[in-house]
Protein backbone atom coordinates (compact mmCIF):
# COMPACT_ATOMS: atom_id res chain seq x y z
CA UNK A 1 0.00 0.00 0.00
CA UNK A 2 2.72 2.39 0.99
CA UNK A 3 4.74 1.69 -2.14
CA UNK A 4 1.70 2.47 -4.21
CA UNK A 5 1.36 5.81 -2.43
CA UNK A 6 4.94 6.72 -3.12
CA UNK A 7 4.61 5.82 -6.76
CA UNK A 8 1.46 7.88 -6.96
CA UNK A 9 3.16 10.87 -5.38
CA UNK A 10 6.29 10.65 -7.49
CA UNK A 11 4.43 10.29 -10.72
CA UNK A 12 2.16 13.15 -9.75
CA UNK A 13 5.18 15.36 -9.25
CA UNK A 14 6.70 14.25 -12.55
CA UNK A 15 3.56 15.13 -14.47
CA UNK A 16 3.26 18.41 -12.62
CA UNK A 17 6.81 19.41 -13.54
CA UNK A 18 6.24 18.49 -17.18
CA UNK A 19 3.13 20.64 -17.20
CA UNK A 20 4.97 23.56 -15.60
CA UNK A 21 7.78 23.43 -18.18
CA UNK A 22 5.53 24.15 -21.12
CA UNK A 23 3.55 26.81 -19.29
CA UNK A 24 6.76 28.48 -18.16
CA UNK A 25 8.05 28.48 -21.72
CA UNK A 26 4.91 30.18 -23.00
CA UNK A 27 4.99 32.72 -20.18
CA UNK A 28 8.67 33.48 -20.65
CA UNK A 29 8.28 33.96 -24.38
CA UNK A 30 5.27 36.22 -23.92
CA UNK A 31 7.00 38.37 -21.32
CA UNK A 32 10.19 38.54 -23.34
CA UNK A 33 8.37 39.51 -26.53
CA UNK A 34 6.56 42.30 -24.75
CA UNK A 35 9.66 43.64 -23.00
CA UNK A 36 11.78 43.43 -26.14
CA UNK A 37 9.09 44.70 -28.46
CA UNK A 38 7.86 47.77 -26.62
CA UNK A 39 10.93 50.11 -26.73
CA UNK A 40 11.10 50.52 -30.50
CA UNK A 41 7.34 50.98 -30.81
CA UNK A 42 7.63 53.70 -28.19
CA UNK A 43 10.55 55.35 -29.95
CA UNK A 44 9.02 55.23 -33.42
CA UNK A 45 5.46 55.86 -32.27
CA UNK A 46 2.78 53.21 -32.59
CA UNK A 47 0.94 54.95 -35.44
CA UNK A 48 4.13 55.52 -37.46
CA UNK A 49 5.25 51.98 -36.74
CA UNK A 50 2.05 50.13 -37.63
CA UNK A 51 0.86 52.40 -40.43
CA UNK A 52 4.11 53.77 -41.87
CA UNK A 53 4.56 52.62 -45.44
CA UNK A 54 8.34 52.98 -45.69
CA UNK A 55 10.87 50.63 -44.13
CA UNK A 56 14.46 51.85 -44.45
CA UNK A 57 16.16 50.50 -41.37
CA UNK A 58 19.75 51.40 -42.23
CA UNK A 59 19.25 54.70 -44.05
CA UNK A 60 20.86 57.81 -42.59
CA UNK A 61 17.34 58.93 -41.75
CA UNK A 62 15.87 55.53 -40.89
CA UNK A 63 12.18 54.84 -41.32
CA UNK A 64 10.41 52.01 -39.54
CA UNK A 65 6.96 51.59 -41.07
CA UNK A 66 5.76 48.00 -41.11
CA UNK A 67 2.44 48.40 -42.92
CA UNK A 68 3.90 46.77 -46.06
CA UNK A 69 4.83 43.69 -44.02
CA UNK A 70 1.46 43.51 -42.25
CA UNK A 71 -0.50 43.84 -45.50
CA UNK A 72 1.78 41.35 -47.26
CA UNK A 73 1.26 38.81 -44.48
CA UNK A 74 -2.51 39.32 -44.65
CA UNK A 75 -2.71 39.15 -48.45
CA UNK A 76 -0.31 36.24 -48.63
CA UNK A 77 -2.25 34.24 -46.08
CA UNK A 78 -5.57 35.12 -47.67
CA UNK A 79 -4.30 34.04 -51.09
CA UNK A 80 -2.99 30.76 -49.70
CA UNK A 81 -6.33 30.11 -48.01
CA UNK A 82 -8.32 30.91 -51.16
CA UNK A 83 -6.27 28.42 -53.15
CA UNK A 84 -5.57 25.88 -50.44
CA UNK A 85 -8.93 25.55 -48.69
CA UNK A 86 -11.06 24.34 -51.63
CA UNK A 87 -8.39 21.85 -52.67
CA UNK A 88 -7.87 20.68 -49.11
CA UNK A 89 -11.56 20.44 -48.34
CA UNK A 90 -12.41 18.51 -51.50
CA UNK A 91 -9.50 16.18 -50.88
CA UNK A 92 -10.77 15.58 -47.35
CA UNK A 93 -14.31 14.92 -48.62
CA UNK A 94 -12.98 12.53 -51.21
CA UNK A 95 -10.82 10.69 -48.69
CA UNK A 96 -13.50 10.50 -46.00
CA UNK A 97 -16.58 9.79 -48.07
CA UNK A 98 -15.92 8.81 -51.65
CA UNK A 99 -12.58 7.14 -52.28
CA UNK A 100 -12.26 3.34 -52.29
CA UNK A 101 -10.52 2.38 -49.03
CA UNK A 102 -7.29 1.20 -50.66
CA UNK A 103 -6.88 4.38 -52.68
CA UNK A 104 -7.83 6.49 -49.65
CA UNK A 105 -5.07 4.85 -47.62
CA UNK A 106 -2.56 5.63 -50.35
CA UNK A 107 -3.61 9.27 -50.67
CA UNK A 108 -3.66 9.59 -46.90
CA UNK A 109 -0.07 8.43 -46.69
CA UNK A 110 0.92 10.92 -49.37
CA UNK A 111 -0.76 13.76 -47.47
CA UNK A 112 1.05 12.78 -44.30
CA UNK A 113 4.30 12.79 -46.20
CA UNK A 114 3.50 16.28 -47.45
CA UNK A 115 3.13 17.41 -43.84
CA UNK A 116 6.54 16.01 -42.98
CA UNK A 117 8.50 17.82 -45.70
CA UNK A 118 10.68 20.52 -44.12
CA UNK A 119 9.77 24.06 -45.13
CA UNK A 120 13.23 24.70 -46.55
CA UNK A 121 12.56 21.99 -49.13
CA UNK A 122 9.30 23.71 -50.12
CA UNK A 123 11.30 26.90 -50.45
CA UNK A 124 13.99 25.27 -52.53
CA UNK A 125 11.54 23.70 -54.95
CA UNK A 126 9.66 27.00 -55.10
CA UNK A 127 12.89 28.82 -55.91
CA UNK A 128 14.05 26.35 -58.54
CA UNK A 129 10.75 25.50 -60.24
CA UNK A 130 8.01 27.94 -59.30
CA UNK A 131 9.92 31.24 -59.51
CA UNK A 132 11.30 30.70 -63.04
CA UNK A 133 7.92 29.21 -64.04
CA UNK A 134 6.02 32.30 -62.92
CA UNK A 135 8.59 34.51 -64.61
CA UNK A 136 8.11 32.78 -67.97
CA UNK A 137 4.36 32.24 -67.70
CA UNK A 138 3.48 35.85 -66.93
CA UNK A 139 6.44 37.30 -68.81
CA UNK A 140 7.74 39.10 -65.74
CA UNK A 141 11.24 40.42 -65.24
CA UNK A 142 11.59 38.42 -62.04
CA UNK A 143 9.51 35.56 -60.68
CA UNK A 144 10.16 36.24 -56.99
CA UNK A 145 6.75 37.63 -56.22
CA UNK A 146 3.86 37.50 -53.80
CA UNK A 147 2.21 35.00 -56.16
CA UNK A 148 5.10 32.56 -55.76
CA UNK A 149 4.84 32.85 -51.97
CA UNK A 150 1.07 32.31 -52.09
CA UNK A 151 1.42 29.16 -54.17
CA UNK A 152 4.08 27.71 -51.87
CA UNK A 153 2.01 28.56 -48.78
CA UNK A 154 -1.13 27.07 -50.36
CA UNK A 155 0.62 23.72 -50.74
CA UNK A 156 2.12 23.95 -47.26
CA UNK A 157 -1.23 24.43 -45.52
CA UNK A 158 -2.90 21.55 -47.40
CA UNK A 159 -1.92 18.68 -45.05
CA UNK A 160 -3.28 20.45 -41.97
CA UNK A 161 -6.57 21.29 -43.61
CA UNK A 162 -6.96 17.82 -45.11
CA UNK A 163 -6.24 15.79 -42.00
CA UNK A 164 -8.32 17.91 -39.60
CA UNK A 165 -11.28 18.14 -42.02
CA UNK A 166 -11.08 14.44 -42.78
CA UNK A 167 -11.25 13.56 -39.10
CA UNK A 168 -14.24 15.87 -38.66
CA UNK A 169 -16.05 14.41 -41.67
CA UNK A 170 -15.43 10.85 -40.50
CA UNK A 171 -16.91 11.74 -37.11
CA UNK A 172 -20.29 12.69 -38.64
CA UNK A 173 -22.78 10.07 -37.38
CA UNK A 174 -23.76 7.52 -40.03
CA UNK A 175 -27.43 8.01 -39.14
CA UNK A 176 -27.46 11.56 -40.50
CA UNK A 177 -26.24 10.41 -43.89
CA UNK A 178 -28.46 7.34 -43.94
CA UNK A 179 -31.49 9.49 -43.16
CA UNK A 180 -30.61 11.86 -46.00
CA UNK A 181 -30.11 8.96 -48.43
CA UNK A 182 -33.38 7.42 -47.25
CA UNK A 183 -35.20 10.64 -48.12
CA UNK A 184 -34.03 10.26 -51.70
CA UNK A 185 -30.99 12.55 -51.79
CA UNK A 186 -28.02 11.43 -53.87
CA UNK A 187 -24.68 10.68 -52.19
CA UNK A 188 -23.17 13.96 -53.42
CA UNK A 189 -26.13 15.96 -52.17
CA UNK A 190 -25.89 14.16 -48.85
CA UNK A 191 -22.20 15.02 -48.50
CA UNK A 192 -22.61 18.72 -49.25
CA UNK A 193 -25.93 19.31 -47.50
CA UNK A 194 -25.58 16.99 -44.51
CA UNK A 195 -22.02 15.81 -43.83
CA UNK A 196 -20.15 19.06 -44.48
CA UNK A 197 -22.54 21.24 -42.43
CA UNK A 198 -22.38 18.71 -39.60
CA UNK A 199 -18.58 18.80 -39.65
CA UNK A 200 -18.27 22.54 -40.15
CA UNK A 201 -16.61 23.38 -36.83
CA UNK A 202 -13.92 20.77 -37.46
CA UNK A 203 -13.39 22.06 -40.97
CA UNK A 204 -13.17 25.62 -39.67
CA UNK A 205 -10.57 24.50 -37.14
CA UNK A 206 -8.54 23.01 -39.98
CA UNK A 207 -8.70 26.28 -41.91
CA UNK A 208 -7.65 28.36 -38.92
CA UNK A 209 -4.78 25.96 -38.35
CA UNK A 210 -3.74 26.50 -41.96
CA UNK A 211 -3.93 30.27 -41.53
CA UNK A 212 -1.69 30.00 -38.48
CA UNK A 213 0.87 28.01 -40.42
CA UNK A 214 0.80 30.44 -43.35
CA UNK A 215 1.21 33.53 -41.14
CA UNK A 216 4.10 32.00 -39.23
CA UNK A 217 6.04 30.50 -42.13
CA UNK A 218 9.38 32.18 -42.82
CA UNK A 219 11.88 29.82 -44.39
CA UNK A 220 9.97 28.83 -47.52
CA UNK A 221 8.71 32.37 -48.04
CA UNK A 222 12.10 34.05 -47.73
CA UNK A 223 13.35 31.92 -50.61
CA UNK A 224 10.62 32.81 -53.10
CA UNK A 225 9.19 36.23 -52.21
CA UNK A 226 12.14 38.49 -53.10
CA UNK A 227 12.10 40.29 -49.72
CA UNK A 228 11.86 43.89 -50.87
CA UNK A 229 9.81 46.08 -48.53
CA UNK A 230 7.22 47.00 -51.18
CA UNK A 231 3.53 47.47 -50.59
CA UNK A 232 1.98 44.15 -51.63
CA UNK A 233 1.09 43.42 -55.25
CA UNK A 234 0.58 40.00 -56.80
CA UNK A 235 3.52 40.41 -59.18
CA UNK A 236 5.72 42.46 -56.87
CA UNK A 237 8.63 41.43 -54.72
CA UNK A 238 7.36 41.54 -51.14
CA UNK A 239 8.44 41.03 -47.56
CA UNK A 240 6.32 39.23 -44.94
CA UNK A 241 6.35 39.93 -41.19
CA UNK A 242 8.33 36.76 -40.61
CA UNK A 243 10.88 37.37 -43.34
CA UNK A 244 11.35 40.99 -42.24
CA UNK A 245 12.69 39.65 -38.95
CA UNK A 246 14.67 36.82 -40.46
CA UNK A 247 16.39 38.83 -43.17
CA UNK A 248 17.74 41.68 -41.05
CA UNK A 249 18.33 40.08 -37.67
CA UNK A 250 21.81 38.75 -38.39
CA UNK A 251 23.39 42.12 -39.14
CA UNK A 252 21.42 44.37 -36.81
CA UNK A 253 23.69 45.74 -34.08
CA UNK A 254 22.75 44.90 -30.49
CA UNK A 255 20.75 47.61 -28.82
CA UNK A 256 20.21 49.53 -32.04
CA UNK A 257 16.79 50.83 -32.97
CA UNK A 258 16.88 48.49 -35.97
CA UNK A 259 17.19 45.40 -33.78
CA UNK A 260 14.55 46.66 -31.37
CA UNK A 261 12.23 47.33 -34.28
CA UNK A 262 12.72 43.75 -35.43
CA UNK A 263 11.67 42.57 -31.97
CA UNK A 264 8.63 44.84 -32.28
CA UNK A 265 7.74 43.14 -35.57
CA UNK A 266 8.01 39.90 -33.61
CA UNK A 267 5.56 41.26 -31.10
CA UNK A 268 3.10 42.20 -33.86
CA UNK A 269 3.46 38.73 -35.36
CA UNK A 270 2.96 37.24 -31.91
CA UNK A 271 -0.29 39.21 -31.56
CA UNK A 272 -1.42 37.92 -34.97
CA UNK A 273 -0.80 34.31 -33.92
CA UNK A 274 -2.54 34.92 -30.57
CA UNK A 275 -5.61 36.27 -32.37
CA UNK A 276 -5.63 33.26 -34.70
CA UNK A 277 -5.30 30.89 -31.75
CA UNK A 278 -8.12 32.74 -30.03
CA UNK A 279 -10.32 32.24 -33.07
CA UNK A 280 -9.35 28.56 -33.17
CA UNK A 281 -10.30 28.13 -29.53
CA UNK A 282 -13.59 29.93 -30.12
CA UNK A 283 -14.42 27.80 -33.16
CA UNK A 284 -13.67 24.55 -31.35
CA UNK A 285 -15.70 25.55 -28.29
CA UNK A 286 -18.65 26.55 -30.45
CA UNK A 287 -18.42 23.20 -32.20
CA UNK A 288 -18.57 21.37 -28.87
CA UNK A 289 -21.62 23.34 -27.80
CA UNK A 290 -23.43 22.50 -31.02
CA UNK A 291 -22.93 18.83 -30.35
Amino acid sequence: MKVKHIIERVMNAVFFICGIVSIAAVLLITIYMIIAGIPAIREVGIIDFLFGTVWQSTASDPKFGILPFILTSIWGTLGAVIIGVPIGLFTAIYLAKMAPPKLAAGVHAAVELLAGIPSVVYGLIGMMVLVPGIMNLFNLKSGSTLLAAILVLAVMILPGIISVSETALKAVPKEYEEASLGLGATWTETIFKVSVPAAKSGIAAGIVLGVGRAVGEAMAVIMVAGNVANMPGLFKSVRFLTTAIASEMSYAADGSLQKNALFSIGLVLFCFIMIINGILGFVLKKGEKNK
Partner: protein
Amino acid sequence: MKLKKIAALITVCAMGASLAACGNDAASTTAAATKAATEANDTTDAATDAATSGETEADTGEDAALPEDLSGAVATGGSTSVEAVIGALSEAFMEEYPDVDVTYDPTGSGAGITGASDGTLDLGLSSRSLKDEEKEQGLTETTFALDGIAIVVNTENTIEDLSLEDIKSLATGEITNWSEVGGPDAPVVLIGREAGSGTRDGFESIVDVEEQCVYEQELTSTGAVMAAVASNPNAFGYVSLSAVDDTVKPITVDGVEATEETVLDGSYKIQRPFVFVTKEGEELSEQAQAFMDFATSSAASELIANAGAVPLK
Protein backbone atom coordinates in the same frame (compact mmCIF):
# COMPACT_ATOMS: atom_id res chain seq x y z
CA MET B 1 2.31 -9.58 -6.86
CA LYS B 2 5.13 -8.34 -4.74
CA LEU B 3 7.57 -8.93 -7.57
CA LYS B 4 5.46 -6.83 -9.87
CA LYS B 5 5.40 -3.99 -7.38
CA ILE B 6 9.13 -4.04 -6.97
CA ALA B 7 9.57 -4.05 -10.72
CA ALA B 8 7.25 -1.08 -10.97
CA LEU B 9 9.16 0.71 -8.25
CA ILE B 10 12.45 0.11 -10.00
CA THR B 11 11.03 1.39 -13.25
CA VAL B 12 9.76 4.51 -11.55
CA CYS B 13 13.07 5.07 -9.81
CA ALA B 14 14.89 4.71 -13.13
CA MET B 15 12.53 7.16 -14.77
CA GLY B 16 12.92 9.54 -11.88
CA ALA B 17 16.68 9.27 -12.06
CA SER B 18 16.80 9.89 -15.77
CA LEU B 19 14.44 12.81 -15.39
CA ALA B 20 16.57 14.21 -12.59
CA ALA B 21 19.60 13.78 -14.78
CA CYS B 22 17.88 15.71 -17.52
CA GLY B 23 16.97 18.36 -15.00
CA ASN B 24 20.55 18.60 -13.82
CA ASP B 25 21.81 18.87 -17.34
CA ALA B 26 19.41 21.65 -18.08
CA ALA B 27 20.38 23.40 -14.88
CA SER B 28 24.07 23.14 -15.56
CA THR B 29 23.56 24.34 -19.12
CA THR B 30 21.72 27.37 -17.84
CA ALA B 31 24.40 27.92 -15.24
CA ALA B 32 27.04 27.70 -17.92
CA ALA B 33 25.11 30.10 -20.11
CA THR B 34 24.74 32.56 -17.26
CA LYS B 35 28.41 32.22 -16.49
CA ALA B 36 29.28 32.86 -20.10
CA ALA B 37 27.02 35.87 -20.09
CA THR B 38 28.66 37.31 -17.00
CA GLU B 39 32.03 36.64 -18.46
CA ALA B 40 31.00 38.45 -21.61
CA ASN B 41 29.92 41.35 -19.44
CA ASP B 42 33.22 41.25 -17.63
CA THR B 43 35.00 41.33 -20.93
CA THR B 44 33.09 44.39 -22.00
CA ASP B 45 33.85 46.06 -18.68
CA ALA B 46 37.48 45.10 -18.91
CA ALA B 47 37.53 46.32 -22.47
CA THR B 48 36.18 49.68 -21.44
CA ASP B 49 38.72 49.82 -18.62
CA ALA B 50 41.50 48.97 -21.00
CA ALA B 51 40.26 51.58 -23.40
CA THR B 52 40.35 54.28 -20.77
CA SER B 53 43.68 53.18 -19.37
CA GLY B 54 45.07 52.90 -22.88
CA GLU B 55 44.39 56.56 -23.27
CA THR B 56 46.28 57.60 -20.17
CA GLU B 57 49.20 55.18 -20.34
CA ALA B 58 50.76 56.74 -23.38
CA ASP B 59 54.38 55.75 -22.82
CA THR B 60 54.69 51.99 -23.21
CA GLY B 61 57.55 52.14 -25.66
CA GLU B 62 57.73 50.80 -29.18
CA ASP B 63 58.37 47.28 -30.38
CA ALA B 64 57.16 46.03 -33.71
CA ALA B 65 57.93 42.34 -33.16
CA LEU B 66 55.13 40.37 -31.51
CA PRO B 67 55.82 39.98 -27.78
CA GLU B 68 56.02 36.61 -26.04
CA ASP B 69 53.18 36.93 -23.63
CA LEU B 70 50.27 39.30 -23.41
CA SER B 71 47.17 39.77 -21.35
CA GLY B 72 44.33 42.23 -21.15
CA ALA B 73 41.56 43.32 -23.43
CA VAL B 74 41.44 44.92 -26.84
CA ALA B 75 38.23 46.78 -27.57
CA THR B 76 37.64 47.15 -31.27
CA GLY B 77 34.55 48.20 -33.14
CA GLY B 78 33.22 49.88 -36.22
CA SER B 79 32.21 48.82 -39.70
CA THR B 80 29.88 45.84 -39.99
CA SER B 81 31.66 44.82 -43.19
CA VAL B 82 34.91 44.24 -41.32
CA GLU B 83 33.31 42.02 -38.70
CA ALA B 84 34.00 38.73 -40.47
CA VAL B 85 37.64 39.61 -41.08
CA ILE B 86 38.27 40.89 -37.57
CA GLY B 87 36.41 37.87 -36.21
CA ALA B 88 38.79 35.52 -38.01
CA LEU B 89 41.84 37.55 -37.01
CA SER B 90 40.90 37.89 -33.35
CA GLU B 91 40.12 34.18 -33.11
CA ALA B 92 43.60 33.32 -34.33
CA PHE B 93 45.16 36.04 -32.19
CA MET B 94 43.42 34.86 -29.04
CA GLU B 95 44.54 31.31 -29.75
CA GLU B 96 48.09 32.63 -29.69
CA TYR B 97 47.51 34.75 -26.58
CA PRO B 98 44.81 33.07 -24.49
CA ASP B 99 44.89 35.85 -21.89
CA VAL B 100 43.93 38.53 -24.36
CA ASP B 101 40.31 39.27 -25.11
CA VAL B 102 39.56 40.96 -28.40
CA THR B 103 36.01 42.20 -28.65
CA TYR B 104 34.33 43.61 -31.74
CA ASP B 105 31.28 45.84 -31.67
CA PRO B 106 29.81 46.17 -35.20
CA THR B 107 28.28 49.63 -35.03
CA GLY B 108 29.29 51.09 -38.39
CA SER B 109 32.36 52.84 -39.76
CA GLY B 110 31.25 56.20 -38.39
CA ALA B 111 30.92 54.86 -34.86
CA GLY B 112 34.28 53.09 -35.19
CA ILE B 113 36.02 56.34 -36.12
CA THR B 114 34.28 58.24 -33.32
CA GLY B 115 35.17 55.49 -30.86
CA ALA B 116 38.85 55.69 -31.81
CA SER B 117 38.77 59.45 -31.56
CA ASP B 118 37.15 59.68 -28.12
CA GLY B 119 39.06 56.71 -26.71
CA THR B 120 36.19 54.31 -26.06
CA LEU B 121 37.80 51.90 -28.51
CA ASP B 122 41.44 50.78 -28.61
CA LEU B 123 41.17 50.34 -32.35
CA GLY B 124 38.46 51.75 -34.58
CA LEU B 125 37.64 49.83 -37.74
CA SER B 126 36.44 51.57 -40.84
CA SER B 127 35.60 50.27 -44.29
CA ARG B 128 36.42 53.61 -45.91
CA SER B 129 39.42 55.87 -45.90
CA LEU B 130 39.46 58.72 -43.43
CA LYS B 131 38.23 62.05 -44.69
CA ASP B 132 40.57 65.01 -44.57
CA GLU B 133 38.72 66.65 -41.70
CA GLU B 134 38.97 63.43 -39.71
CA LYS B 135 42.71 63.33 -40.29
CA GLU B 136 42.91 66.92 -39.12
CA GLN B 137 41.41 65.79 -35.82
CA GLY B 138 44.58 63.77 -35.25
CA LEU B 139 43.44 60.37 -36.50
CA THR B 140 45.55 58.06 -38.63
CA GLU B 141 44.61 55.05 -40.68
CA THR B 142 46.42 51.76 -41.20
CA THR B 143 45.07 49.73 -44.10
CA PHE B 144 45.22 45.97 -43.51
CA ALA B 145 43.00 44.58 -46.25
CA LEU B 146 41.03 45.54 -49.34
CA ASP B 147 37.53 44.54 -50.24
CA GLY B 148 36.64 44.03 -53.90
CA ILE B 149 33.01 43.77 -54.95
CA ALA B 150 32.31 42.05 -58.25
CA ILE B 151 29.35 42.97 -60.45
CA VAL B 152 27.85 39.77 -61.85
CA VAL B 153 25.22 39.15 -64.52
CA ASN B 154 23.53 36.03 -65.84
CA THR B 155 25.65 33.98 -68.23
CA GLU B 156 23.07 34.59 -70.99
CA ASN B 157 23.62 38.35 -70.80
CA THR B 158 25.84 39.61 -73.62
CA ILE B 159 27.06 42.60 -71.59
CA GLU B 160 30.82 42.50 -71.04
CA ASP B 161 31.68 45.90 -69.67
CA LEU B 162 29.91 48.69 -67.78
CA SER B 163 31.12 52.06 -66.65
CA LEU B 164 30.63 53.09 -63.03
CA GLU B 165 28.06 55.62 -64.28
CA ASP B 166 26.12 52.86 -66.09
CA ILE B 167 26.09 50.74 -62.95
CA LYS B 168 24.76 53.69 -61.00
CA SER B 169 21.94 54.28 -63.49
CA LEU B 170 21.10 50.58 -63.57
CA ALA B 171 20.95 50.36 -59.78
CA THR B 172 18.77 53.42 -59.30
CA GLY B 173 16.30 52.32 -61.96
CA GLU B 174 17.20 55.16 -64.32
CA ILE B 175 18.03 52.58 -66.96
CA THR B 176 15.42 49.84 -67.08
CA ASN B 177 16.44 47.93 -70.18
CA TRP B 178 19.74 46.24 -70.91
CA SER B 179 19.65 47.50 -74.52
CA GLU B 180 20.35 51.04 -73.23
CA VAL B 181 23.82 49.96 -72.19
CA GLY B 182 24.49 47.75 -75.19
CA GLY B 183 22.98 44.53 -73.96
CA PRO B 184 20.00 42.45 -75.07
CA ASP B 185 16.45 43.84 -75.14
CA ALA B 186 15.49 42.71 -71.64
CA PRO B 187 14.43 44.40 -68.40
CA VAL B 188 17.02 45.09 -65.70
CA VAL B 189 16.63 43.25 -62.41
CA LEU B 190 18.84 44.27 -59.49
CA ILE B 191 19.43 41.52 -56.98
CA GLY B 192 21.15 42.65 -53.80
CA ARG B 193 21.70 41.99 -50.14
CA GLU B 194 19.60 42.86 -47.11
CA ALA B 195 19.93 46.15 -45.23
CA GLY B 196 22.89 46.01 -42.88
CA SER B 197 24.97 43.74 -45.06
CA GLY B 198 28.54 44.90 -45.53
CA THR B 199 28.59 44.02 -49.21
CA ARG B 200 25.48 46.10 -49.79
CA ASP B 201 26.90 48.96 -47.80
CA GLY B 202 30.13 48.72 -49.82
CA PHE B 203 28.43 48.57 -53.19
CA GLU B 204 26.03 51.39 -52.46
CA SER B 205 28.67 53.72 -51.04
CA ILE B 206 31.26 53.13 -53.79
CA VAL B 207 28.77 53.42 -56.65
CA ASP B 208 27.17 56.31 -54.76
CA VAL B 209 23.62 54.97 -54.79
CA GLU B 210 22.92 54.89 -51.06
CA GLU B 211 19.20 54.62 -50.36
CA GLN B 212 18.39 54.99 -54.08
CA CYS B 213 18.65 51.39 -55.25
CA VAL B 214 15.57 49.83 -56.80
CA TYR B 215 15.89 46.21 -55.73
CA GLU B 216 13.91 43.38 -57.18
CA GLN B 217 15.21 40.94 -54.60
CA GLU B 218 16.98 41.42 -51.28
CA LEU B 219 18.61 38.18 -50.25
CA THR B 220 20.40 37.24 -47.08
CA SER B 221 23.54 35.56 -48.34
CA THR B 222 26.12 35.76 -51.08
CA GLY B 223 25.16 32.26 -52.20
CA ALA B 224 21.51 33.25 -52.57
CA VAL B 225 22.46 36.26 -54.71
CA MET B 226 24.63 34.04 -56.93
CA ALA B 227 21.82 31.50 -57.30
CA ALA B 228 19.25 34.17 -58.11
CA VAL B 229 21.50 35.84 -60.70
CA ALA B 230 22.30 32.44 -62.21
CA SER B 231 18.61 31.61 -62.62
CA ASN B 232 17.31 34.93 -63.99
CA PRO B 233 18.61 36.09 -67.41
CA ASN B 234 17.64 39.70 -66.62
CA ALA B 235 19.49 39.88 -63.35
CA PHE B 236 22.58 41.65 -62.16
CA GLY B 237 23.92 41.62 -58.65
CA TYR B 238 26.95 42.35 -56.51
CA VAL B 239 28.94 39.81 -54.55
CA SER B 240 32.21 39.70 -52.71
CA LEU B 241 35.07 39.11 -55.13
CA SER B 242 36.07 35.86 -53.48
CA ALA B 243 32.64 34.32 -54.11
CA VAL B 244 32.58 34.62 -57.91
CA ASP B 245 32.44 31.31 -59.79
CA ASP B 246 31.38 30.24 -63.28
CA THR B 247 27.62 30.02 -62.56
CA VAL B 248 27.51 33.76 -63.21
CA LYS B 249 29.39 36.18 -65.43
CA PRO B 250 31.49 38.88 -63.76
CA ILE B 251 31.67 42.01 -65.90
CA THR B 252 34.53 44.43 -66.29
CA VAL B 253 34.07 47.88 -64.79
CA ASP B 254 35.46 50.70 -66.96
CA GLY B 255 37.34 48.00 -68.84
CA VAL B 256 39.03 46.52 -65.79
CA GLU B 257 38.46 42.92 -64.79
CA ALA B 258 37.81 42.26 -61.10
CA THR B 259 40.71 40.23 -59.76
CA GLU B 260 42.87 40.35 -56.66
CA GLU B 261 45.62 42.03 -58.70
CA THR B 262 43.43 44.82 -60.07
CA VAL B 263 42.01 45.41 -56.61
CA LEU B 264 45.53 45.60 -55.15
CA ASP B 265 46.87 47.99 -57.78
CA GLY B 266 43.77 50.13 -57.45
CA SER B 267 42.64 49.97 -61.07
CA TYR B 268 39.42 48.11 -60.27
CA LYS B 269 37.03 50.79 -59.05
CA ILE B 270 34.50 48.95 -56.89
CA GLN B 271 36.74 48.36 -53.94
CA ARG B 272 37.36 49.88 -50.55
CA PRO B 273 40.00 49.63 -47.87
CA PHE B 274 39.55 48.05 -44.44
CA VAL B 275 41.47 50.29 -42.07
CA PHE B 276 42.43 50.54 -38.41
CA VAL B 277 41.76 54.00 -37.08
CA THR B 278 43.99 55.20 -34.27
CA LYS B 279 44.97 58.51 -32.72
CA GLU B 280 48.12 60.02 -34.05
CA GLY B 281 50.96 60.31 -31.56
CA GLU B 282 49.19 58.28 -28.91
CA GLU B 283 50.68 54.97 -27.87
CA LEU B 284 48.38 51.96 -27.99
CA SER B 285 48.20 49.44 -25.20
CA GLU B 286 50.66 46.60 -25.70
CA GLN B 287 48.01 44.07 -26.63
CA ALA B 288 46.22 46.43 -29.02
CA GLN B 289 49.47 47.23 -30.79
CA ALA B 290 50.26 43.52 -31.00
CA PHE B 291 46.85 42.81 -32.51
CA MET B 292 47.31 45.52 -35.11
CA ASP B 293 50.81 44.25 -35.95
CA PHE B 294 49.39 40.76 -36.30
CA ALA B 295 46.59 41.93 -38.60
CA THR B 296 49.01 43.73 -40.89
CA SER B 297 51.59 40.92 -40.89
CA SER B 298 51.87 38.39 -43.67
CA ALA B 299 50.75 35.70 -41.22
CA ALA B 300 47.26 37.16 -41.36
CA SER B 301 46.99 37.06 -45.15
CA GLU B 302 45.40 33.66 -45.37
CA LEU B 303 42.90 34.46 -42.63
CA ILE B 304 41.93 37.68 -44.40
CA ALA B 305 41.57 35.90 -47.73
CA ASN B 306 39.45 33.16 -46.13
CA ALA B 307 37.17 35.79 -44.65
CA GLY B 308 36.47 37.12 -48.15
CA ALA B 309 38.75 40.16 -48.37
CA VAL B 310 41.94 40.81 -50.31
CA PRO B 311 45.09 40.83 -48.14
CA LEU B 312 47.74 43.45 -48.83
CA LYS B 313 50.68 41.03 -48.62
